[in-house]
């Protein structure tokens, strides 16, 4: 029997993210970006179908988060990384570049996913600053 099946918690999380218009990333317990939804794709300028899964540091570099001073935010200080490594929620504000070079000012909340059999991964949702009208994407 194949062992590649994703944990149910990640399957359900992906189904949820694929059904909502809030931009969101899903990473597994190893830190691999295993899915991002269409709304997140609009934000970063690429569709998940184009990028496929990205390794732990690949996705950090691919979307190049910057702080308010324009300095790159180290991978281990990203909210998603903190949720992964420390198993706790994290929220912060940052800037990202889309593939077209547009700079987005966003807020990010990351949440760990813990199943009955332990830590499964994390979700990060993004909110473009200034999108208070509810149309985040």
């Amino acid at each position, binding site marked *: 029997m*194949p*062992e*590649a099946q994703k944990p*149910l918690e990640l*399957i359900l999380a*992906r*189904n949820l993210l694929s059904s909502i218009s809030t931009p969101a990333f899903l990473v597994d317990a190893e830190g691999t970006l295993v899915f991002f939804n269409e709304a997140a794709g609009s934000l970063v300028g690429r569709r998940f179908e184009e990028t496929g899964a990205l390794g732990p540091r690949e996705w950090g570099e691919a979307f190049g988060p910057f702080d308010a001073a324009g300095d790159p935010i180290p991978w281990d200080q990203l909210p998603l990384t903190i949720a992964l490594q420390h198993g706790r929620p994290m929220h912060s504000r940052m800037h990202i570049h889309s593939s077209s070079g547009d700079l987005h000012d966003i807020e990010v909340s990351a949440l760990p996913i813990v199943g*009955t059999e332990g830590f499964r991964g994390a979700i990060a949702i993004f909110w473009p600053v200034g999108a208070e009208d509810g149309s985040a994407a």
Partner: protein
Amino acid sequence: MKATVWGARGSVPAPGPETNRYGGNTSCVHVSLDDGSELVLDAGTGIRPLGLAMTGTAERIHILLTHLHMDHIQGLMFFAPLFHPKTDVIIYGPASPEASLMDRIARYISAPLSPVEVRELPCQVSFRDAPDIEWQIGSASVRASSVAHRGPTLGYRITEGDTSLAYIPDHEPALGASLDSLGDEWISGYALARDASLLIHDAQYTDAEYPAHMGWGHSRITDTLAFAHRVGAQRLALFHHDPMHDDDMLDGFVTDAAERWRERGCDPAQIAIARERRPLDFARPRAPDASASSASAPGSAARSPDVTSA
């Protein structure tokens, strides 16, 4: 491995003249292994008549619970072997961070719902969280895995030699996403059911009924067929019949399912519907010509592709 259905109804027992042919008891399937080991899949009300049939025949019985919704445990306290001091009953079920399996089941087998407490059961009973790795019961290997339903819920795969049974009676794998849009590893239950000799799967709703029940943890027939096709099951037994579905409706339901299976380019003899007190067929379907007639016309047991005709 032999398997017999003792209850195929979902949600709540539905006894009555209009359900006599397919049966009104809730989920329960008896599995006998070649080495004599006895397994019982779920403890819906079908386990009561099963227990009467088993009395005195088994020293050890393994009950595999998929989850603890009432239609899957309601018959447990009426299972006769629980009242035989020499019988060893091992009950497996989903783990929960909230309480042990025994404590959760004891909520049902205790006052005010029951006159008998778990600790008063005369048999030797033990409760075990289903392991997250494959384990052995007699001559079979057993695998449990969480599947998409409401609350902690397992599916099981039982493999003996080259025969495998996948039992996923409560399952909504297409919730929030079309199965056609998902990679194999993203489909709930895929690994459990892949290439199974027989897949017993939730088929509670028609496509018309499903929108009003989306998210309740059950499948519409379109998704059941898509899942079975995707995993490459050699046979599919439609299970967990809605209590509103009477015999005549189920006759047409399975005939329609078999026709839709044929439209996928598959042999309609692979499609069956679970019926109480009937054995399930593990053998590969006969030649298409011989099987096609069994699904060709609705309206009678002889013409419907039930588990004995397939």
